[in-house]
């Protein structure tokens, strides 16, 4: 039995008569490919949580005598605490708002919302860059959280722009930003149809069209 026969069977293109050993092997791989664990994508913020967790632990009992990088992690903690306080304050305001009858679309953060994820790779313009995005359906549109690393900050009329693109090549802008960490974007088109996410480098003088300088690209996939 040729290798092409085995691949055709696995790909569902043909049904050649395979040996029982080849059939069992192909079916084992097919079974693994249906596993949820194989395709499950961690939340885009998990990387930062891991870095913070180890940074905190390093501050308490470093297995090594400490490095400049650990110092940087420690230095970031007060800022996180400020964010926590701001978060608590925001929660109080939200609760008061609800009490006086303000309608808030809390369903936007429902854990049951349809969610897509994208793993973005750096192109030849940014080979050291990478990113993860989580796209969550809300009543107002698709809320997209992007966390990209390896992209230098752009300022002074230079910025990044994110896009969702469909199979026909139509690209829809979903937001601009200066730094890739913890970016919030919004899209009015579904990632099921616009299944490629890209990030380009732009200049203010260049107008609204894509510069074509793609630094990150990756497919979107449904995770929930």
């Amino acid at each position, binding site marked *: 039995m040729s290798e092409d026969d085995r691949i055709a069977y696995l790909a569902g293109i043909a049904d050649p008569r395979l040996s029982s050993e080849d059939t069992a092997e192909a079916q084992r791989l097919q079974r693994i490919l249906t596993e949820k*664990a194989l395709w499950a994508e961690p939340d885009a913020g998990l990387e930062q949580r891991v870095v913070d967790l180890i940074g905190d632990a390093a501050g308490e009992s470093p297995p090594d005598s400490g490095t400049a990088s650990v110092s940087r992690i420690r230095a970031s903690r007060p800022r996180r605490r400020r964010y926590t306080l701001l978060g608590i304050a925001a929660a109080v305001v939200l609760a008061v708002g609800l009490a006086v009858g303000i309608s808030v679309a809390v369903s936007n953060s429902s854990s049951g919302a349809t969610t897509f994820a994208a793993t973005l790779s750096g192109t030849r313009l940014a080979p050291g860059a990478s990113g993860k995005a989580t796209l969550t359906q809300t009543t107002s549109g698709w809320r997209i959280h992007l966390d990209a690393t390896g992209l230098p900050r752009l300022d002074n009329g230079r910025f990044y722009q994110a896009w969702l693109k469909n199979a026909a090549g139509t690209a829809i802008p979903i937001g601009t930003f200066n730094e890739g960490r913890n970016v919030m974007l919004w899209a009015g088109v579904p990632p099921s149809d616009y299944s490629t996410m890209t990030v380009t480098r732009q200049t203010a003088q260049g107008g609204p069209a894509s510069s074509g300088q793609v630094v990150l690209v990756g497919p979107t996939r449904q995770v929930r």
Partner: protein
Amino acid sequence: MIRITIAGRFVHFSREPISPGTAYLVDGSESAAAGDWDVIRSSVTTVVMGDAEMAAEFAAGSADAVRAVYQAYGRLVYSVAFKVLGDASLAEDATQQAFLQAWRAAPSYDPARALGPWLATIARRAAIDVYRHTRRHEAHAGLESAEATLVSHPPSLDELYEIWEVRRAVDSLPGEDQEVIRLQHFAGMSHAEIAERLQIPVGTVKSRTFRAHRRLVNLLAHLRRGDASPAQLRPAGREVSPDE
């Protein structure tokens, strides 16, 4: 993994070598812009790091090294945790615990072992710990988890090894290949349905899926040849029983 320095100053860890046309942050502040390539080229140093050196950087708590190890192995660790726990949120908890435990154990990391399988073993143990903790909490609260039986017998090292290897292979495929394989097997779509989803002809789907599966099979050839074994996932010291 590659450690990149420019003019003797650490830039970052990377899975790809430095190249022209790319801007890099130097010491987190200065930018070596694309146009400066000719100027900086002579001062660029790239050092390919082995697992042992990477583990040493990781053990030192360097945020850049933690990121680099996470980016290289985070999804694999998460897959192992997800396979054990069957729940995204618990798998994220287990992934965090796995990296923390790995960081604590890193000074005693045996450089003769590959970093990835070592992390996978820790991830499995961390996932089992998370499961037990969750069950204890539920029992204390008078709740009975409907999914308890799903993980009462955690996956064997053999099963986790297969998931680990297939995920590693799938992750290294081009995005286009990953997509057709995912749609066919995970989403259970026919070639016609994939064609409709991707808005391409069925013939293109067939050729694309054949090519994708060929690449996948080639990447997994070492499993067929028996070059690698689940033993790679076993800790150097003692075996961990599923119910331990």
